[in-house]
């Protein structure tokens, strides 16, 4: 098991290293940031001074190495636009994003589990059909459109919930629901098909023959095994959540990493882009690592296959 964790960790590190190079190159390629920060009438000398001051005149390899070295200790440089250390911006935004992601994940699980399980248990009934409609809509609705419609109807016309910002519990509801719906769709499908398969298996039949109460058969005997594919995909769901958050945070004016990334890209703020993308990648990689280890614990076949 330790061996598995070690190699899996090594693999994540290599992936992150490759990614940091790609991000560095791409961020340098998004155009000259000086055009954005210097006034229109700046002279060539002003450009040269600013370039030297920001360290943009050094060789790329040197810039990259100093970037990685400092990133490892949490120093992502100074935001070119906000003129504040990037780490401060991250510290301010990251908790908001994590809270929203956690809330959305909670919404997804709370909706997907009962719906997915009931859809399998009562296959072909109204519950099943409702579940399938919820799931197919979740995969077909453009998230940002749902967000706009919700802002207009629920926050605008009915005035039930706040339209944006991050004040109190109520402001979580709309963005959390919008984010969660897409994940619900996939999770519910997996649970449904997993449950259908397991409910048909020999050991479930045996449990029923032994006289185990049906509720216990479904929620304990069957669910345990139907969960395996869901756990496998938890990492992918998380990556989807992080991605979708960029759009959702933009519409709901949510002060999170997604908004930071969007603002960073529109204003060509290299340090911010690098920091956000790398932080996101590290989080996604960590979640994936945990998921794989968890999976190896649940399913011994994975452990011994490597």
């Amino acid at each position: 098991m330790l061996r598995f964790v070690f190699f899996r960790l090594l693999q994540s590190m290599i992936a992150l290293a490759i990614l940091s190079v790609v991000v560095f190159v791409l961020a340098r390629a998004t155009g000259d940031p000086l055009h954005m920060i210097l006034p229109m009438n700046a002279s060539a000398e002003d450009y040269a001074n600013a370039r030297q001051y920001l360290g943009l005149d050094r060789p790329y390899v040197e810039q990259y190495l100093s970037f990685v070295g400092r990133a490892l200790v949490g120093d992502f440089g100074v935001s070119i636009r906000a003129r504040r250390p990037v780490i401060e911006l991250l510290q301010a935004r990251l908790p908001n994003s994590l809270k929203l992601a956690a809330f959305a994940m909670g919404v997804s699980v709370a909706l997907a589990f009962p719906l997915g399980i009931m859809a399998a248990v009562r296959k072909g009934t109204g519950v099943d059909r409702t579940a399938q409609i919820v799931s197919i809509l979740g995969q077909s609705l453009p998230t940002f459109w749902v967000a706009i419609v919700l802002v207009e109807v629920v926050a605008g016309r009915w005035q039930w919930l706040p339209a944006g910002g991050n004040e109190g519990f109520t402001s979580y509801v709309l963005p959390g629901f919008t984010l969660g719906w897409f994940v619900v769709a996939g999770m519910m499908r997996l649970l449904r098909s997993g449950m259908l398969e397991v409910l048909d298996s020999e050991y479930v039949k045996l449990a029923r023959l032994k006289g185990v109460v049906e509720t216990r058969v479904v929620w304990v005997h069957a669910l345990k095994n139907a969960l395996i594919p869901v756990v496998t995909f938890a990492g992918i769901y998380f990556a989807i959540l992080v991605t979708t958050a960029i759009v959702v945070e933009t519409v709901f004016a949510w002060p999170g990493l997604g908004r930071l990334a969007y603002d960073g890209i529109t204003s060509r703020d290299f340090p911010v882009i690098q920091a956000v993308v790398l932080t996101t990648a590290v989080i996604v990689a960590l979640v994936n690592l945990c998921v794989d280890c968890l999976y190896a614990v649940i399913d011994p076949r994975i452990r011994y296959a490597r």
Partner: protein
Amino acid sequence: MIDAAVIPEASASLERTRSRRLPVVSLSIIVVFVLVALLAPLISPADPYEQSLRLRYRPPVWEERGSWSYPLGTDRLGRDLLSRIFHGARVSLAAGVLTVLVASAVGAAIGLVAGYYGGRVDATLMRVTDATLSFPVILLALILAVTVGPSFTNVVIAIAVILWARYARVIRGQVLTLMQLDFIAQARIAGAGAWRVITRHLLPNTLNTLVVLVTLQIGYVIIVEASLSFLGAGIPPPTPAWGGMIAEGRDVVTSAWWVSFFPGLAILLVVLAFNLIGDWLRDTLDPRLRQL
């Protein structure tokens, strides 16, 4: 990441009881939208680029002040919304189909090579695939779109750069299973080289999976393209793109709801239709793929 697609399904027959009726409604929606996209210049009631500030924010025909000259109303610059949606269909469908074709060709090739050669080739290719898979699509597409500048071609490339990994992973999983089968061994004993085995024996046996994946992903790509256009990193204005049109209507959603509502509805219809057809194809061609 663990490859769920290669875990054999215990009871594929379970799902087989589900109805296999042809998804007529979905197919008709796609046919209609494809026709609209092809014939957009002929059937549009107005020029999608023609501005008229006197005719800004005209409501749809059934509302007060609405008129038949602008069936779905007009936008901020007084352009006819219906004509823009018709032309937007070209952008969305072309982006969806092209991106998926590029991504599936690259991904399938990599998956076939990795699965056929195995060993180090496989390990290296799959590490790259994993790294790509774990990267949030929109984030990289955003960076790429801004890097190389927003344009139709760049959006297609930006999304395809990430999307191929999905195909590589699934196809490689299938090839690994196929390689265990006798007919591949026999082909190799008969002297077939790598190229022949891959193109004549492995590829045809993964085609069903490819078709299902392609159909399921066209809808996804249309949504990603719309998201990018919505964020201002996709198809640049004034070209009518559904995502961009929704963004234009975002700030006036209270006073002129139709500007962002109808393009959204168009996206929903097309993506829904593609997803339903994809589901049907999967159930029919390849029930093992149920988890995608």
